């Protein structure tokens, strides 16, 4: 039952110490409390720095997040962000050797809402990650040849895409039409990228107001925060901010030839709404009813979908979602309530999970915290859970039947 995103399972299972989240109201690194284990800082330009002190952790994780709010893709630019992520992550070609020799790993991910670069470092080596992030923010010099070379690599990536991802992408398209384009893109659209268009994309994507930097591990809060704030100040300055219409999803049923299997998806309104968490809990509970089914969910500030699916058969889920008895609902309530909280708790155990989840929330909505989601699930009543289950019904949710293969 995969949930996309890092699993957060690290070698250290030290629990995060529950404490107060301090916020600097304005300016940089103001109002710090040296005793606080975590510190959130908003810079004047609008970027966010989160530093979380995890004294027992055996690594420091540094995550750079860049919001895609100013770089929404269209069918003609679909996948340019994904391509840029590939090129940036390769750096100068020696980046991985430098990092791995020092025990540091770098991974990169492109989501609809943001791009994510994560460095996992031995304690004390987070400064190396900062150096490389400075390079990422500075920009890059892609060449036509390098773009073509990367597209030859990505052709292999596209051809062997995971079935669950394809079903979830189909649910997004069904719910939101062209606004529901996935983060993968198409090779055709990507082949239209030029060095100039990618450099312009970088400047807009990595503009300072779009950034969040999270550092989690055995680090000094104040010193690390000061370094991180100074680092983000080197980011490109913002250009014109684009206003966009909020997403509006529609219940629908589609047959998709690009994938095989079956999925039901609930249309949600973002992590600031209780209903989103009811749907998540419902999806997790429903997934326990069908072995090998999956749940796809990326916390989002905007409307999104929570997808429950299977890629081994293309029937069976609908009958379960639409045919739950009162006894079934009662039985599933406890499961969903527990699993929803457990998913967040598992993420927040490790530095990697903290850097992932806090960054994902902060880059989309500066003040948002995963703890708010946990509270919403904790407060969920049985009636609200049933509402979450109904969001997967054929009349309110999205039904995808993958008829490919």
């Amino acid at each position, binding site marked *: 039952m995969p949930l996309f995103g890092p699993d957060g399972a690290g070698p250290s299972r030290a629990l995060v110490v529950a404490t107060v989240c301090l916020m600097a109201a304005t300016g940089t690194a103001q109002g710090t409390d040296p005793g606080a284990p975590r510190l959130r800082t908003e810079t004047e330009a609008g970027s966010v720095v989160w530093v979380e002190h995890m004294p027992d952790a*055996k690594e420091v994780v540094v995550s750079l997040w860049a919001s895609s709010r100013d770089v929404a893709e269209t069918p003609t630019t679909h996948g340019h962000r994904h391509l840029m992520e590939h090129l940036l992550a390769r750096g100068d070609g020696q980046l991985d050797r430098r990092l791995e020799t020092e025990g540091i790993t770098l991974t990169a991910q492109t989501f609809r809402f943001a791009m994510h670069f994560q460095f996992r470092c031995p304690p004390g080596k987070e400064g190396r990650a900062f150096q490389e992030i400075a390079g990422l923010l500075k920009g890059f010099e892609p060449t036509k040849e390098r773009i073509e070379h990367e597209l030859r690599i990505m052709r292999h990536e596209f051809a062997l895409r995971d079935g669950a991802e394809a079903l979830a992408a189909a649910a997004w398209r069904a719910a939101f039409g062209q606004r529901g384009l996935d983060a993968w893109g198409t090779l055709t659209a990507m082949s239209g990228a030029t060095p100039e268009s990618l450099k312009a994309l970088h400047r807009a994507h990595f503009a300072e107001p779009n950034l969040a930097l999270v550092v989690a591990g055995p680090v000094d809060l104040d010193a690390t925060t000061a370094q991180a704030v100074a680092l983000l100040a080197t980011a490109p300055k913002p250009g014109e901010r684009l206003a966009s219409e909020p997403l509006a999803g529609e219940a629908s049923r589609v047959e998709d030839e690009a994938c095989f299997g079956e999925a039901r998806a609930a249309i949600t309104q973002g992590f600031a709404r209780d209903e989103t968490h009811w749907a998540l809990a419902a999806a997790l509970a429903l997934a326990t009813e069908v072995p090998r089914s999956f749940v796809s969910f990326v916390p989002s500030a905007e409307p999104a979908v929570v997808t429950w699916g299977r890629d*081994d058969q293309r029937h069976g889920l609908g009958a379960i979602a639409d045919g739950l008895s009162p006894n079934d609902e009662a039985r599933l309530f406890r499961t969903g309530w527990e699993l929803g909280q457990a998913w967040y708790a598992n993420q927040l155990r490790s530095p990697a999970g903290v850097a992932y989840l806090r960054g994902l929330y902060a880059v989309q909505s500066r003040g948002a915290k995963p703890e708010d989601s946990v509270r919403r699930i904790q407060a969920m009543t049985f009636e609200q859970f049933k509402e979450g289950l109904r969001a997967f019904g054929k009349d309110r949710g999205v039904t995808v039947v993958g008829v490919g293969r």
Partner: protein
Amino acid sequence: MTFSIPLVWRGGRQAGVVTLIAASIATGATADSPPLEGWPIGRGGQNSQVRTLELHDAEADSVVVHAAISLPEMSDHYRARAEILADVLSQGSEAYPRITVRRMTGALGSPLRGFTTPGTLHLRAEVPVDAWDNALMVLADALRKPLLEDAAIRASIEARTLVEPTEWSKALVGRRYDWASVQPREIRELAQAILRPERTLLVVAGAHEPRSAAARVAARFAGWTAGPVRRWTFDSVQRTWFPQGRYVDLLGRPFDPRNEWPVACVAALALGGGKDSTMFRVVRERHAWSYRQEAFLQMEGNRWRLRSVVQQAPGTEGPDAEALRQALLLDVAAWDESTLKRALAMARLAAWGRVPSPLQLGSSGRADMASLVGRALLAALWFENTGELWSADEFADRCAKVKLDEVKRWTEAQLKESSGRIYGATGSPAR
């Protein structure tokens, strides 16, 4: 994470590592068990005892109870039945029906589960600390008094016929067992043959009371005597997977990990661990032959093999296996001290689960050293394969003693002696 409990090893083999409590009553012969076809393997009325490995982790917030049953050498026909047996064992026993099993072992979402890796059948659960003795009780009953009812076996068979493995798994495993030919009677007979105390290694890992495992295991398995087994034979029929992608695969010669694991692990990490590995740099970045390419040590019982696999889009032309081999050899020849330094850094990370392990456990993926469940599984397999107790520190330290020349020689020999094949997209079956 640190392991703070000194080693106590009463089984005759001393690993000298301060990481594990290993209380053993190793009276049964397991490492050299004769092939299944060469039965009888059980002598009836034998009262040997289950061996126990205790892995204490004070920082964990759970306990894993894990039984590893060593399998005789088996044809694919038997392996298919072993997979079914593993699954059905987790579905209930004489004393504990399925719903009770799930209630007693499912509190953390990781209830009793059965699966196989090459050479071993596993049954395990991860439970809250205060529930581990109950989980052990359930597990013991599953092994000693399995139900193995027709309905449960048929349900397990049916479920398998529907499973569509991932593209990568299809390519690595290759075989698609002929599930439909499995008969419930065969599963019961197989259970009688392999569920025996002398084949069983019990791992208790987590935050339980230190040094308490051996006594509890002894109590739960007291009086377990396995009956005699009889000979039988089957015709073997199997189908193969047809992955969508094109795969270029180099499979090295089998080797004994007892002597070679440190150099083999460093070699696998230099060749395929991380984004500065030879596979990533040469196959993906230099030639753009693939997006996914891996080199790893394939664990096949007590023999391991170095394997290098390149996954390509359907319709891709080239390279052939020889071109891949030559490209890798060219890079290996240029390995220098900086290559070794990077590989050793990766070995330290792999030891603690921060990067994928170089060890591939059949279709179960890489050894997961980051989770308690994964470490319990690894502890069982590592002991059975190398004769040593698993220790992350020991792993990194032994790797650090490997010399550059040694790694280059070993890798070059493996690549030169490897068999190459291409399968997949054009309709050719996986191996």
